[in-house]
């Protein structure tokens, strides 16, 4: 569960380029929520996501995750609760490391990285089982560098890595923007399955209104750094792509 209280942020304050990215945003995201954040470019949706992830520390306001005030924690300190998927499908995995090494890091995301060997036969079997769910045949390529895989395969792996270690929150910043339509659809389906299976609080920033209607059980539309319109669990079921597109005009 995430609570965002009175959060505001200004980029380049005190200069002629000052931009109000977030104005007094209040939000509560519950377990099982699949929140889709929509809005035109520059409306503040990515800033909102980055404020939750800790990539930017907002000028004002509080972020509370599962009862912990994380407002002053940096992104790597918030990884205890938050797993992330990036717009760049190559950013979520380390190219020169094997699939096994990547998944090892993911499996200790919330723990400290000690001077001990973590990859044993038990872990290898566990990873082989986990990646076989993706139906990409990766279970036979565990020692292969991730850099040899395609963008779609790497994004699927990133999603899988997100749930390797006690995730509570999944933040996705346009995860399918760089993928072909078929791969994009598979990735979104995988994300939806994982969110349901692990009962995560998910936030998806996207420009795909189709995905918003299909997967979101809450939709938030942002404008000029504030929440402009929200569709809750009930109204979300009836909203259509045509209805949403009207808000962009």
């Amino acid at each position, binding site marked *: 569960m995430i609570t965002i209280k009175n959060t505001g942020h200004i980029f380049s304050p005190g200069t002629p380029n000052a931009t109000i990215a977030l104005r007094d945003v209040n939000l509560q995201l519950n377990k099982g929520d699949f929140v889709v954040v929509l809005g035109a470019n520059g409306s503040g949706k990515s800033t909102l996501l980055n404020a939750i992830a800790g990539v930017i520390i907002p000028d004002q306001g509080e972020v509370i995750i599962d009862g912990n005030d994380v407002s002053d924690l940096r992104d*790597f*300190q918030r*990884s205890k609760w938050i797993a992330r998927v990036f717009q760049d499908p190559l950013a979520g995995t380390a190219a020169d490391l094997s699939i096994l*090494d*990547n998944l090892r*890091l993911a499996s200790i995301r919330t723990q400290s990285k000690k001077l*001990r060997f973590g990859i044993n036969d038990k872990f290898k079997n566990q990873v082989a089982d986990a990646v076989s769910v993706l139906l990409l045949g990766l279970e036979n390529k565990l020692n292969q560098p991730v*850099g*040899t895989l395609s963008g779609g395969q790497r994004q699927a792996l990133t999603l899988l890595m997100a749930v390797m270690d006690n995730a509570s929150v999944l933040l996705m910043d346009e995860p399918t923007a760089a993928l072909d339509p078929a791969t994009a659809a598979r990735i979104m389906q995988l994300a939806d399955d994982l969110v349901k299976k692990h009962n995560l609080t998910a936030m998806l920033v996207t420009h795909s209104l189709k995905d918003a209607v299909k997967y979101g059980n809450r939709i938030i539309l942002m404008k000029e750094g504030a929440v402009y319109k929200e569709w809750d669990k009930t109204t979300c079921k009836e909203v259509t792509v045509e209805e949403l597109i009207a808000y962009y005009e």
Partner: protein
Amino acid sequence: MDFYTAALLQGLGYAAMGLGIFISLKIFNIPDITTDGSYTLGGVITAVGLVSGWHPLLTLLFAIAGGVGAGIATGLIHTKLKVNSLLAGILVMTALYSVNLGIMGRPNIPLMNVNSIFEMLPASESMNMELIIFLLTVFLLVAALYYLLHTDFGIAMRATGNSERMVRAMGINTGVMMITGLALANGLTAISGFLLVQYQGFADINMGIGIVISGLASVMIGEAIAKMFNSNNILLQLILVVAGSILFRLILAGALSSGLNPNYLKLVTASLVLVVLVLTKFKRSRS
């Protein structure tokens, strides 16, 4: 033939620095110029320590600590003060020149009648003590790095140079990781300073000028050979860095013995590194 034995010994002596450059260049993508200063620092501390009658292993600890300190300085300047990594290295290298001169008190210290690392094993006529000590050191370092890079911490370290966003999302402080990596790299470099000073019998304030290029050369020669095997096995990569270091010294020895004017040595060195660099550029590492 003695000429080539000397080259082999030098190659092994400089291998520790090569391994250090492997960490900074291959893992963190930083061409770390601090090396010039931390190599001399390691050598300078060694000379002063041994002349003062310290035990060689105690001297080694101090030399490593010096290198680690230099690496931390560069790391802090780069990550905390947001100075470009190359520039941070140049700054620390420049500052170290004065530090080294201050530690020695003069530009040059000869090692006469000191108890060096080569006297630690019982002397024997039939064995080359220097070769044994150098081989042993290189073996221990490769084994230690192989172990380190396969631990959870080592995996995190290797990932840091790949995708900073991913590593932070995995709960790793990339700044601390980078400082640790540079400390490790320069600690290794100082070990080369420690070995070479005892091998050549003196420490000199200018001994480190341009030395970083030999480290870069060993890593790149190693990388070029690794490409032929098409392998990303870490043990192989570490061994190839050592092989690269030896090969590089043999090439220089070959060039000198075939009548190259020693004045052109650095020119030849730079050209050699450029050639290897361009050769390995094709099929360069993945993004």
